């Protein structure tokens, strides 16, 4: 058995990825607080260390050392399981996202993706779906009306918005049939990123981006669609009863979802790690991916600063009467186009 290729290298890659993601998460909170501050003409956190860069560390320490309480009236096993069940899938999404081209290191070709699997996008959808369980179970196990309402809202919102999102992804997968040699298309994110597409196909794909972005906002439960927690209606939604590190895990999940969704969107819509001169210097791919990812995260934060939260019925109405038909029309036109071409 070739244990170096099968176990050692993927293990090292996943350890690096997890460490980078978890530090990235901490500083993403800093970036968000700073940016939101500037959007509101404030300065944002600036007390701990230079530019407030010590705040994420202080927050992490505070969270860890807080008293951990499990209320008596909760379902204790599910209560403890919830945050983990939410966090693990949000980390797993990144397994199939190519963060860079294949690099030659230590005499081996090392692709910059943890799992180069042919069901890439399906994996993203499936794992993202499991992530909903963490939220719903957490809210259910808390045995608290606010938590339960938050959890119910989450499940309805996720299910509704997964539909237009899935249809848009189907349309995008249809376009990959134009790029593969045998014309059968691919689900593999590594191949989707590598694919050369003519400019009119890019333009057509980008046309779907605003719709997809709205779906992403709802799926990650970010403002303006932060119905799972809606603090002015539901205290804190599904995480009302959580404290200490369990609360931090939910918090982490939210930001990792943002990173994961951004990674997927960058790979599908904006060519992942590709950019000028990346053929000559493969290392640049990593840089391009990071820049594109940060731009996408900026878009998330910008949206949360700009748009107020709609009412809950408006959220569902918008999904079923506008987003879903629009996605269907988009997919139909794409399908016809792909068949004709």
């Amino acid at each position, binding site marked *: 058995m070739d244990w170096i290729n099968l176990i050692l290298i993927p293990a090292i890659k996943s350890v690096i990825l997890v460490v980078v993601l978890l530090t990235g998460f901490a500083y993403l909170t800093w970036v968000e607080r700073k*940016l939101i501050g*500037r*959007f509101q*003409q404030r*300065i944002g956190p600036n007390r701990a260390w230079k530019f407030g860069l010590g705040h994420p560390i202080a927050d992490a320490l505070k969270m860890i050392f807080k008293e951990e309480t499990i209320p008596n009236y909760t379902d204790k096993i599910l209560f403890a399981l919830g945050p983990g069940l939410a966090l693990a899938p949000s980390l797993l999404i990144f397994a199939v996202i190519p963060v860079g081209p294949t690099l030659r290191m230590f005499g081996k070709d090392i692709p910059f993706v943890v799992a180069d699997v042919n069901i890439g996008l399906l994996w993203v959808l499936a794992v993202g779906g499991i992530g909903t369980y963490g939220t719903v179970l957490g809210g259910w196990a808390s045995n608290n009306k606010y938590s339960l309402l938050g959890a119910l809202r989450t499940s309805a919102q996720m299910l509704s918005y997964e539909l237009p999102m899935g249809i848009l992804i189907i349309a995008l997968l249809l376009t990959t049939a134009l790029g593969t040699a045998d014309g059968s298309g691919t689900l593999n994110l590594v191949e989707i990123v590598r694919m050369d597409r003519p400019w009119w196909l890019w333009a057509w794909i980008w046309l779907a981006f605003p719709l997809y972005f709205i779906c992403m906002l709802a799926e990650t439960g970010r403002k303006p669609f932060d119905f799972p927690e809606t603090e002015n209606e539901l205290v804190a939604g599904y995480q009302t009863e959580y404290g200490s590190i369990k609360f931090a895990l939910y918090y982490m999940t939210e930001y990792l979802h943002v990173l994961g969704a951004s990674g997927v969107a960058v790979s599908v819509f904006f060519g992942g790690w590709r950019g000028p001169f990346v053929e000559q210097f493969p290392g640049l791919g990593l840089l391009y991916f990071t820049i594109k990812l940060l731009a996408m995260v900026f878009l998330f934060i*910008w*949206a949360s*600063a*700009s748009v107020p939260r709609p009412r809950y019925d408006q959220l569902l109405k918008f999904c079923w009467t506008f987003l879903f038909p629009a996605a269907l029309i988009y997919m139909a036109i794409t399908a016809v186009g792909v068949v004709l071409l």
Partner: protein
Amino acid sequence: MSYVNEVFRGAVAIAQAFGVTLKALLSSPLTVEYPEQPAAVYPRFRARHELRRYENGLERCIGCMLCEAACPTGAIHVEAAENDPEHPTSPGERYAKVYDVNLMRCVFCGDCETACPVEAVVLGHDFELAVYNRAGLLLQKEQLLNPKAPNVVVRAE
């Protein structure tokens, strides 16, 4: 058709919202970093009392006790004494030997200031009044004559 119109208008409204926030992002923050930077106060702002002097160094207060009489809460206590003709403390016949202000009672109404015939007592701009014990709020003449800021506060009117 009206539905398409509505969708279009909504999209334009959201784009406008994005524009507003982007403009805010590109302008500089309005925050005053207060403990590091001084906070601006209005000219008529009334905070801690100050006893002023003339330019030649003589105290303005002549110990007439009108401020004590005018004070609605009894926060001011003045005891007057005769000036030494050789070394006068104030230009008049008398000066304030004791001038105490109890900031726990003071309501910063400014009546003492209005009552004062020689513009000696002024409610200045020093609003950082927090102290660690009650004694710190009982101000005596020395503290009122030597406020932290230079003795130049003049009301606009």
